[in-house]
């Protein structure tokens, strides 16, 4: 994934689209746009920085998992087998991006679940660690139908589909001809906190 910070306006449309797609409970987000500042008045810039799981090639969250619930697929997507997770939080401590979140016995926004909340409830996630999945079910289903992730909306993570500024591009980093690979080269996109040695799969276009 490549995120163009020149385009992002911090609107949180990706945040809410993700919450809806994954039926996340109140106060839980798998991604959000941080609203920060660099510099001091009057020489200051306001910066919007989308944050999420970086789906690192060397994910520190995976080896620390005592049950093996934290896993990495062959295509690089880092995910959690909820049935094996005990919610201990080691992975959350290990993640330098604070991208993992424990979902408790999640109530709805109003105490009593709304019909929509009841219809989309995910009890298997209660008491376990959760995080951005790169919408792997959506990507997989789309791919199974012959769609191309990153090109066809139905096979692309919802954050990228929903983004109103087209700041988020999804694709195959292993394919040097893919849109994301070309963007990384042409726009000199960089990962966040590369010094951690995690080899993130999310890159940012800064300037």
């Amino acid at each position: 994934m490549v995120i163009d910070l020149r385009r992002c306006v911090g609107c949180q449309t990706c945040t809410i689209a993700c919450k809806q797609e994954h039926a996340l409970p109140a106060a839980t987000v798998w991604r959000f746009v941080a609203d920060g500042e660099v510099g001091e008045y009057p020489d200051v810039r306001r910066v919007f920085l989308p944050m999420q799981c970086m789906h690192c090639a060397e994910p520190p969250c995976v080896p620390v998992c005592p049950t093996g619930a934290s896993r990495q697929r062959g295509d690089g997507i880092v995910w959690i087998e909820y049935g094996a997770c005990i919610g201990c939080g080691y992975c959350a401590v290990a993640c330098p991006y604070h991208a993992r979140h424990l979902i408790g016995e999640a109530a709805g926004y109003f105490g009593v679940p709304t019909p929509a909340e009841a219809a989309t409830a995910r009890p298997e996630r209660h008491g376990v660690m959760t995080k951005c999945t790169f919408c792997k079910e959506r990507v997989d289903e789309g791919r199974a139908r012959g769609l191309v992730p990153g090109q066809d909306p139905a096979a692309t993570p919802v954050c990228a589909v929903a983004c109103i500024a087209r700041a988020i591009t999804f694709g195959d980093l292993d394919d040097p001809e893919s849109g994301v690979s070309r963007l990384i080269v042409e726009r000199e996109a960089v990962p966040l906190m590369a010094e951690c040695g995690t080899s993130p799969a999310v890159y940012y276009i800064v300037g």
Partner: protein
Amino acid sequence: MATERVPVYCYQCVAGPDLLKVVVKDGVAVGVEPNTDLAHEHPAGGTVCVRAYGLVQKLYNPARVRTPMRRTNPRKGRHQDPAWQPISWDAALGLLAERLNAIRATGLLDAAGYPRLAVTLGAGGIAPAYLGTFAAFLSAWGPVDQGIGSGQGVKCYHSEHLYGEFWHRAFTVAADIPRCDFVLSFGYNGDASGGVTGVFRHAEARARGLRWVQLEPHLSVTGAGAAEWVPIRPKTDFAVLLALLHVILIERDWRQACDVPFLERMTSAPYLVGPGGYFLRDPTSGTPMVWDRDRQRTVPFDDPRCVRPALDGAGIAAGVEIGGDGARRSVSERVRPAFAHLIDHVRPYTPEWAAGIADVPAETIRRLARDYLDHARLGATIEIDGVSYPHRPVAVLLGKTVTNGWGGYECCWARTVLAALVGALEVPGGILGTTVRLNRPAQNRLDSVRPGPDGFMEQPLNPTGRDTWHATPHIRNAYRTLVPLADHSPWSAALGPAHLPWLFREDPPEHWPAPTTPDVWIIYRTNPAISNWETGRIERELERFPFIAAFAYTPDETNWYADLLLPEATDLESLQLYRIGGTKYIEQYWEVTGWALRQPVTAPPADTRDLTDVATELARRTGLLEGYLAALNRGVGTTVPLVGPGYDLAFGPGDTPDAAEVWDRVCRAATRSLSGGEVEHDLGWFKAHGAFFVPFAPSQYFLHATMAASRLRYELPYQERLKRIGEELGARLHERSITWWDAQLEEYQALPAWKDFPGIWRRSAAVRGRRVEEFPFWLLTSRSMQYSWGANVSLPILADVARHVQGHFGVMLNRGAARRLGIADGDPIEIESPTGTTRGRAILREGVRPDVVVVLQQFGHWATPFARDLDMPNLNQVACLDLALTDATGSGADLVPVQVRRL
């Protein structure tokens, strides 16, 4: 599991409508997604913004009003429980009809001449997209006061609306961003307010290298994406704009810097101005004169042999000046072109002078002027739809508080003159109008261009002549009497001084009809107890309203005072077909135009009723069915007549159509009218497909070709007509001994001069017995994309995501200023103005001027579920209703001198 995707539109802000699908599983709406089926038609690929994703929660919100309710506690007050009693729709509409029929039996106007029925529709241009056919009911009713404001009119881009439409059919002004290279934005916050199309266009432009400079007191969402932030003092924008004009016209050789052919042919710059300040005119025809440099004599401006009219110089010439009320004055003396007056006018306004007022360095102003000129590309052309246009890729944009209240006229004038100087007005790359509201037809700006006086466009104005002025206000905000530019269109009531009905109740003006309260006030999607200035005063007034019928989604601070709550079917529960595409509103430049449908996506979870069915039933119960159907047949509220070439879908006498029947006919008429009769789609087709489009050529974005073909000119830079109007309006008011509008009359200047605009607000402290020095900060508001216009403050999911955008749920202030006051991040603070206090948590930022504090939107709720727990301050609690803070268009601005302290 059965999954459907139901197409609807979202018009929760005036930057739409946008297109979405609602995902419905086994009859339950579970989500929202972009309508990518229409990605090619929608400029932003069918996406919708963060607010649309709250619609499912809005549908199922357990806190909503679930059935009609009547008040059983006759006493009204914030601390009086209304004691709501659930009743049936039949009983509720019976109660309302009884009140309405009592009015019809008594008389539609009260003793003061005001309508006994008042209706307030909130959120500016949004209500019509959700109002069904209610407008047809109001049309059938007769006189209705739609000018009791909720803040939305007088706080919006008020001066831009009125003057923009006057100058270039620009009720709203946008830059032609896709073809623009340089933007000077004075507080324009389009990345929060411009909708998905605006955000998308800005993002595309930034990615290709557009340079955006943001001048504003705090670093907004839009400022974040700018190449440069210039922290200007509040309400001093006109000073910098004047200095920019000074640099271009005085410090540079204007003959080289400006688009001289544009000024000569497309503006009034060459018109000669006499010593009285009015155009020098031919004594016989009354035509304005110019100086022909080739023939060295005066000629009518439209003399085809005059190819080189003078823009500067002076000479003796003869003619007449025509002032207010037709007063003629023979002239045979020294006259100069309007452009020469402009040059002299801006001469004192040096960058050094502006720097002292605006806290913007003189060198910055000079650099910005240089950048503006460098990017203007004089002489460049671009091809649009096979036609060559001038290409002037520079724009000056203005934001809220700059475009309204004192100084709004001046800033709008300067911005538009800056465009005219380089020919960047209504051409590719420059500034454009997006929609028209006062002129007709409303669907295409180009078709609204008609020849008017003196080579300018015709513009409908409220008359100011001795025999034509409307001396007696016909509604309580008196826009026809006090605001000539507001015209008398269906939108005008919202464009007048809509806070005057509240202000005048406690402070009645002299020689004016007695302020009265309407017998029945119907409100929809509006909450003046939160959104109007001086909220405490509004609440006191609300206690006096004898009968308020409120269409109500949840309990709120205004319907707390209501007598009847009517839970209308909301966004995803009701039917409506709405126009979409073209250039309407903010940055909506589409290559198609057409119609989109909003439809129920599932069974309503509460006992709601479609507003179309409410309107039909009210018409029946008040004996107005015939007039209501006639209005529907004319297209009132739907904007498409049911009878047209080759089709007759009109309702007949005695019909009582339900919402589906009404909108089915509208669907068929709309497609017929748009396709020249070739296509007819019914409601069923729209339910499946969502929208119908026909092409809309990009050449229709630009007024230039139409103006040139009609040999018309922009009424710039010299405002002779406004000067005359102001003189006449003053005469009319003074003839009736009305002097309380005198300060407003001073706005009618041919060439606007700097005034101490910040001082107008500062002085409000002294009037109230306080010292100006007590209030060293400016309290300002800023836009939240998450909350603006959406009537969604009761949705916790919006708060859940909005908390990530700084400024929500607190007060932003400069970190250094806070340190000096002993305020730490998160501290509770109190903000005090001369008239009130409001409280919130401190959010310390570097991107705020040290003399400014900022709150987002308008919160301060105490009755609305969920929102009342947000603990958000509200500028309106400390802003005062004050005639002295009201400009000539009737607007004010969201800024208040305040003091700040830690609690």
